């Protein structure tokens, strides 16, 4: 059965290996130069306040240098779509094509139960899906390591600034680094297989797989990830929160470098939330000195409430998110076994 699985899968396997190799070559060609830029930036061996300046300079220079922003975004994009491709082209046809071409009558009438047939197929192809996606993520992490270090020195958790580079908690970085790609790949593959088993036609199953997986990819960072571990709460001064005066939200979590800022809002002296600049400070804001609203708000007793996840929760959050997707993948695989076991072909 292992032979048959490989024989039916080898074209896809070679395609995936070729894509992986092409990606690796692209990164290998640009990675050393990126590392040398980092080495020359003065970040190594910096101390105190010079580090932030050096890191900031390095990132700005990188953002303006040839291929780096493009490769940076391309890599993220590839790791994001890899699970979807796996789900569509490896998962959806796994059962659906056998039903469509009626070759299941051949496969399931050899001296092997269809439970075993499915077990071998799901395990081997599923592991391949996870391996390929995680391999993409790992070589990309190697390439982007200097960027991550520089962002770490700036103390940004999910921070976006003028350059395209983002911190470890940003929606896309979190889902493409660490162990989460394993979870996404397993989920997408099992989703494709289960959809194929249910719809019994390859092309519609592919479309449904893509729609559901894309929805899951959007729903996770927006609706689920912020609630996986109850966030910490802190009340800080307006000045320290680096306030964005447009909507009175914080841009950093004071004293928590690399933290994930989930939400923030200003409160007045009485502890009530406020969403607009008080009239007394409007003048200062529109006046000649744009930095004065902070002092004005401080003098009126305003403070900032911030909900955040400290940087130390990065791996627990990675573990939980990956666990959720692996559990979903197992449930979907279980559905496939149940579906085939009911013998309604």
């Amino acid at each position, binding site marked *: *059965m292992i*032979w*048959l699985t490989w*024989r*039916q899968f080898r074209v896809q396997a070679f395609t995936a290996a070729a894509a992986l190799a092409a990606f690796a070559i692209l990164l290998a060609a640009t990675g050393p130069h990126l590392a040398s830029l980092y080495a020359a930036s003065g970040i190594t061996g910096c101390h105190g306040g010079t580090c932030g300046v050096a890191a900031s300079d390095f990132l700005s220079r990188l953002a303006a240098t040839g291929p780096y922003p493009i490769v940076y975004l391309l890599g993220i994009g590839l790791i994001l779509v890899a699970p979807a491709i796996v789900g569509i082209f490896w998962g959806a046809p796994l059962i659906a094509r056998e039903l469509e*071409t*009626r*070759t*299941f*009558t*051949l496969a*399931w*009438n*050899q*001296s*092997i*139960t269809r439970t*075993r047939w499915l077990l071998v197929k799901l395990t081997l192809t599923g592991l391949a899906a996870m391996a390929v996606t995680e391999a993409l993520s790992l070589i990309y992490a190697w390439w982007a390591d200097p960027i991550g270090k520089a962002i770490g020195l700036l103390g940004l958790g999910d921070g976006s600034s003028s350059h395209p580079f983002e911190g470890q908690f940003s929606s896309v970085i979190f889902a493409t680094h660490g162990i989460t790609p394993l979870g996404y790949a397993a989920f997408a593959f099992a989703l494709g297989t289960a959809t194929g088993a249910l719809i019994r036609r390859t092309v519609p199953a592919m479309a449904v797989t893509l729609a559901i997986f894309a929805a899951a990819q959007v729903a996770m960072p927006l609706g689920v990830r912020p609630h996986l571990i109850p966030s910490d709460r802190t009340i800080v001064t307006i000045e320290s929160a680096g306030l964005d005066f447009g909507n009175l939200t914080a841009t950093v979590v004071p004293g928590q470098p690399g933290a994930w800022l989930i939400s923030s809002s200003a409160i007045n002296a009485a502890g009530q939330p406020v969403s607009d600049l008080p009239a007394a400070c409007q003048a200062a804001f529109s006046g000649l000195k744009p930095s004065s609203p902070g002092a004005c708000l401080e003098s009126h007793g305003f403070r900032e409430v911030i909900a955040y996840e400290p940087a130390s929760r990065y791996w627990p959050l990675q573990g939980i998110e990956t666990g959720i997707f692996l559990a979903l993948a197992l449930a979907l695989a279980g559905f496939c076994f149940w579906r085939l076991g*009911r*013998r*309604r*072909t």
Partner: protein
Amino acid sequence: MRAVIETDGLGKRYRRRWALTDCTLSVPAGHVVGLVGPNGAGKTTLLSLVTGLLAPDAGTIEVLGGTPGAGQAQLARVGFLAQDAPVYARLSVADHLKLGARLNPGWDAELARGRVDRLDLDPGQKAGTLSGGQRAQLALTLAVAKRPELLVLDEPVASLDPLARREFLADLMEAVAEHELSVVLSSHLVADLERVCDYLIVLVGSRVRVAGPVDELLAAHHLLTGPRRDPATLPDGLEVVSASHTDVQTTLLVRTSGPVLDPAWTVSEVALEDLVLAYMSQAAGRRRRDHHHLEVQK
């Protein structure tokens, strides 16, 4: 003799429609069984139940004394050739043989290779480019080389031209004789089965109409021709399968256990094809009457 297929009240339903109802059969071993009936009669459903591709919704079925499709050992004992002989289009002939070798502990590699040689199949050719006849031969090779005790073939010759049809059946019979297989094959044409089958099951409208060894069936059915009369006046023990009347004459196809003694009738033998057609039209007539009855009720 041991039964290869034993069913009791077997039924299978697709949503609300019963594809097979109240099927009770006991097919002894060592026969080549023809399963005949019009398209949509439930032949594929019955064969899928025999191979375990489907599970019954009513009644029981035992194949070679075991539950169909349950476990590796049972699967190894039954070979199946599905309708239109599906094969993996992108796998070569040699790949298919390797597939058979890998997935069947009882695989007879010599037999498989011998057949492929004799049938002049190119081992390197992709199965998707084979002709219908070659594809059927390849699928039959897979089914035979696993050395089953029972070989099940669903409409194996339906998509073949007359020459390929004859070759396929001749080849099948050779394999049967050589390996002492029990065989069940279905067709909607009696002519296909007449030459090869010694046991017949007629399935019409999801029900088994008649089943038995061909010689017994032929011995028990007679064609009666005589002056016109009402079939209801016939003596007991005569079961009318079909009746046709002209102004002066009545022709009956009857089933009886003994000889027909009434001198008013001219008794003649029945051809297998006429016998099958009589059961088919009987079922069709019943359905028409049922339909008519329903319309009257409305």
